[in-house]
C-alpha cells in the first residue's frame, strides 16, 4: 500500500516547509534564553523576535508596533473580538458578524452573548458573499465591532472587506477581519484594507501549527486577551515561543515571495479540476463563488451521497481531503457555511473540499479527476436516495449538468 499520497487539504493545515524547520532548529538548540532578560542568551532570543516582527511588518507594509505574535489564528480571533467587547462596553454591547465565519469567530461571539452582549449575524448570498450595505444597515449607535472574514475556509469566497472597512471607518466602528485563509494566498495589506484588527495563522502557509499573528492598527486600544507578563509590548503575555516566531516569519517570507506565480498556477489547476469534475460527474454543484475565490479552494457537492464516505474512499486511493459533513462531531448538522449559502442538509452532507498547495501538480489533479468519478458512482450505487431517484420516486436538486448556485432548493421527502 505504499502509493504516493496526494495531499489536498491545505486549507486545514500544511506541512512545515523544510526551510522553516531549518530556521527553527538552531533556535531550539541554542537560543533558549528568556527574551526578557539581562544576559547574552536572552538578548539573542529577543533580537530574533524583534527582527521577526520587523520582517513581518515589512512584508505586510505596516509598523512593527502593529504586529503581535500569538499562539494561533483562534487566539487572534478571540483577542480581537473579546478584547474589543471588554474594552468598549461603555460604548455598547452590540457586534456584527456573518453566518459563515470560522468557529473561532462564531464561538467567541456566542461566548459574549452569554455575557449579555448582542450579536447580529448577517446572512450571505448563494455564493457566500456578505453585502456591505447590510453591514451599514446593521450598524447601530451601540455597535462596537464588525467582524467579517477576508476569505472563507470552506468555500473559498473572498469578501468585499475593503468596502466593509470603509463603512466601519465612516461610522466609527472597529473592523476586524479573520484573514487566516487569505494570508499567503491573496494579497493582504492591512493599511490599504483599512482594517483595525486582523487575525493570521502560520500553519496555513507552511509554518507550524500553534503560532499566529495579530495585527492591531496603531492607536487602536483593545483589552488584552492573554493577561500576564509584559511580553509583546505588554499586550500579549506568555513566554515568547522564539522558534515558532522565527518559523512563521520565514514561512511568510517564502509564501509571499512565491505568491504571484503560485496563485496563478493554483487558479489554473483549480479551474481545470473543477471543469473536469463537473463535466464527468453529474449532479455536482460548485460551492462558493466561481471567481471571487481563493486560488486553492475547490468545494463541490455531489448529490445523493455523503461526504465522509467519499473521504474514506479517497484515503484508500491515497488522497487527503475534507468534507462539510459533520455527523462525526456529534452534531447532526453539516457545515454551517454550506447551510448558510442555501444548501439543504442532504446536499451539504455530500460535499467535498479539495484545497491545493505548493506540492500539488497537474498530474495530481488529473489523477484525481480520473479517480473521483468512480468513487462517486460507487457510493451512489449504494445510496437508497439515488435508487429512489433513478426509479423516479424523488427529484434531483442539483441539475444533471451541474451548477454553481442553487436557490430555494427543496428537501427530499423519503
Amino acid at each position, binding site marked *: 500500500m505504499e502509493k504516493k499520497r496526494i495531499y489536498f487539504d491545505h486549507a486545514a493545515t500544511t506541512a512545515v516547509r523544510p526551510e522553516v524547520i531549518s530556521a527553527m532548529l538552531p533556535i531550539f538548540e541554542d537560543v533558549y534564553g528568556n527574551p526578557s532578560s539581562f544576559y547574552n542568551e536572552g538578548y539573542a532570543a529577543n533580537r530574533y523576535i524583534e527582527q521577526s516582527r520587523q520582517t513581518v511588518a515589512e512584508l505586510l507594509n505596516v509598523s512593527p508596533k502593529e504586529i503581535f505574535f500569538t499562539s494561533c489564528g483562534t487566539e487572534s480571533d478571540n483577542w480581537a473580538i473579546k478584547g474589543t467587547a471588554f474594552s468598549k462596553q461603555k460604548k455598547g454591547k452590540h457586534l456584527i458578524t456573518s453566518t459563515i465565519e470560522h468557529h473561532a469567530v462564531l464561538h467567541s461571539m456566542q461566548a459574549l452573548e452569554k455575557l449579555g452582549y448582542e450579536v447580529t449575524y448577517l446572512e450571505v448570498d448563494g455564493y457566500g458573499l456578505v453585502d456591505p450595505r447590510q453591514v451599514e444597515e446593521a450598524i447601530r449607535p451601540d455597535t462596537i465591532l464588525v467582524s467579517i472574514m477576508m476569505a472563507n475556509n470552506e468555500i473559498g469566497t473572498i469578501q468585499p472587506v475593503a468596502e466593509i472597512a470603509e463603512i466601519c471607518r465612516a461610522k466609527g466602528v472597529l473592523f476586524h477581519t479573520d484573514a487566516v485563509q487569505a494570508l499567503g494566498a491573496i494579497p493582504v495589506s492591512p493599511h490599504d484594507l483599512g482594517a483595525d484588527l486582523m487575525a493570521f495563522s502560520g500553519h496555513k502557509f507552511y509554518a507550524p501549527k500553534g503560532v499566529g499573528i495579530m495585527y492591531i492598527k496603531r492607536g487602536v486600544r483593545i483589552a488584552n486577551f492573554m493577561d500576564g507578563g509584559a511580553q509583546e509590548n505588554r499586550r500579549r503575555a506568555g513566554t515568547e515561543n522564539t522558534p515558532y516566531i522565527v518559523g512563521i516569519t520565514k514561512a511568510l517570507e517564502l509564501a509571499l515571495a512565491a505568491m504571484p506565480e503560485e496563485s496563478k498556477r493554483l487558479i489554473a489547476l483549480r479551474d481545470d479540476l473543477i471543469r473536469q469534475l463537473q463535466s464527468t460527474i453529474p449532479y455536482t454543484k460548485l460551492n462558493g463563488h466561481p471567481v471571487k475565490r481563493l486560488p486553492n479552494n475547490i468545494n463541490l457537492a455531489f448529490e445523493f451521497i455523503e461526504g465522509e464516505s467519499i473521504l474514506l474512499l479517497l484515503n484508500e486511493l491515497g488522497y487527503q481531503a475534507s468534507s462539510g459533513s459533520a*455527523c*462525526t462531531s456529534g452534531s*447532526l448538522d453539516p457545515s454551517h457555511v454550506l447551510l448558510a449559502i442555501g444548501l439543504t442538509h442532504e446536499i451539504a452532507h455530500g460535499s467535498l473540499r479539495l484545497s491545493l498547495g505548493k506540492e500539488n501538480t497537474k498530474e495530481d489533479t488529473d489523477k484525481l479527476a480520473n479517480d473521483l468519478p468512480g468513487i462517486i458512482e460507487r457510493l451512489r450505487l*449504494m445510496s*437508497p436516495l439515488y435508487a429512489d431517484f433513478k426509479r423516479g420516486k424523488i427529484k434531483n436538486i442539483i441539475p444533471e449538468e451541474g451548477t454553481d448556485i442553487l436557490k430555494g432548493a427543496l428537501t427530499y421527502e*423519503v
Partner: protein
Amino acid sequence: MKYSEKVMDHFLHPRNVGEIEDATARGTVGNPTCGDIMRIDLKIIDGIIEDAKFMTFGCGSAVATSSMATEMIIGKSVGEALELTNKAVAEALDGLPAVKMHCSVLAEQAVKKALLQYYQDNDLLTDEIREKFGNLDDDAHDHGIDEDDLPGLGNK
C-alpha cells in the same frame, strides 16, 4: 477519528449491497437531513431470512453497520433476528467510535422495521412481540452519548 479494521473492511467491501426485487419486507430508517438513511430488504421464507440486502446513504460506519447487520441475520429465523442489538453489531465490528454508535442503532432499527412489516403482513404481532420493536418511530438519532466523550472535528 479512526475505524477498526473490521469497519473498514465492511465499508470497503460491503456485503449484500443492493435491493431485493421481490423482497418480503423492507425497512427504511434515518433521515437525509441527518446525513444517513439505511434501507434493508429481507427475503423471508418459512420464517427464515433467506436473503438480506441493504442500501445506505451515510458515513463509513453507517455502511459498515448495515453490511454487518445483514450478515448477522441471513440464515436466521425472524425470531432470532429480532434479538439483534446495536451493541452486537458494533461488537462484531470490533467496536465503533463513540460518536458513531448511533449508526449501529440505525442498523438495528432498519432490520426491526423490516421485520415489523413481516410480522404485520403475516399477522404475527402478539403483544409480547410488539414490545420487542420498542418505539421504532422515535428519533432514531438519539445519539445517546455523553457529550463529554465527543472528540470533534473542527471545520477548518
